[in-house]
């Protein structure tokens, strides 16, 4: 069943991306995990969009998610550069001066 393959693969990749975001210490790795999660969501959209060949709503959602992901990656990496410049490390658990 093709739809179930898409949905199960998307669920697996989303959870792996969540694990990467929660577990990894390097800030760039955290951003890559977020990209993985966005891609899993795209897989869900395309899985359902196969049955909607005339309106193609799923495909347009993916198109706009791609745009947002590119913008997010650019701004996120600029912030990571600032973080590295301030703390002299890309380790996310070292940046704890805002800790309450």
């Amino acid at each position, binding site marked *: 069943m093709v739809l179930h393959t898409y949905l199960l693969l998307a669920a697996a990749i989303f959870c792996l991306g969540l694990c990467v975001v929660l*577990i990894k210490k390097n800030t760039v790795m955290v951003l890559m995990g977020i990209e993985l999660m966005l*891609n899993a969501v*795209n897989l869900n959209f395309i899985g359902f969009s*196969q049955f909607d060949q005339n309106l193609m709503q799923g495909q347009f959602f993916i198109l706009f998610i791609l*745009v947002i992901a*590119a913008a997010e990656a650019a701004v996120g990496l600029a*912030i990571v550069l*600032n973080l590295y410049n301030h703390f002299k490390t890309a380790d996310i658990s070292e940046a704890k001066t805002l800790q309450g």
Partner: protein
Amino acid sequence: MNLTEYIFYFFCLLSLAGAVYMLFSKSVIYSAFALLTTLLGIAALFVFAGAEFLGIAQIMIYIGGVLVLFLFGIMMTRRLNSDALEKTGNKNLLTGIIAGGGLFTLLLIIILKVNFLSLEWIQRGSTQKSATGVASIGVKLMTDYIMPFEIAALILLLALIGAAVIAARVINRQS
């Protein structure tokens, strides 16, 4: 199973293997290349679902743009006295595994229990197959989706300016 299905499952396994390797790898650069295989596999799955334009856009935007940006990010945040390959440690190991595994179990139960194929619009859609392609995407983008299209263009411009301003502050301070 015919050849097409073998290729389909090969790309499924490719993208899954890349994601698993990302989780277990210690090296940041190897993880970036594992992300590349995952994105490539997902682009192939887009093509299998009849969205050729999105497959090409995925390869151009993610592999050509975002991944190169990540490699630059890895390069610029290296410690000067570290090894050639940047290593990453783990934190919150138990919390991460519980959250990820728990969410996956929940999604697995939901996906296996719900019968999506009995939905009315899916049954209607699987009977009527019409020819779609890049041309109809272009027409719809300029008619039905013109407003989100313009907003997306504005967001890209703002993100470009914002990223340049934030990153340029670092470079100015360093010089």
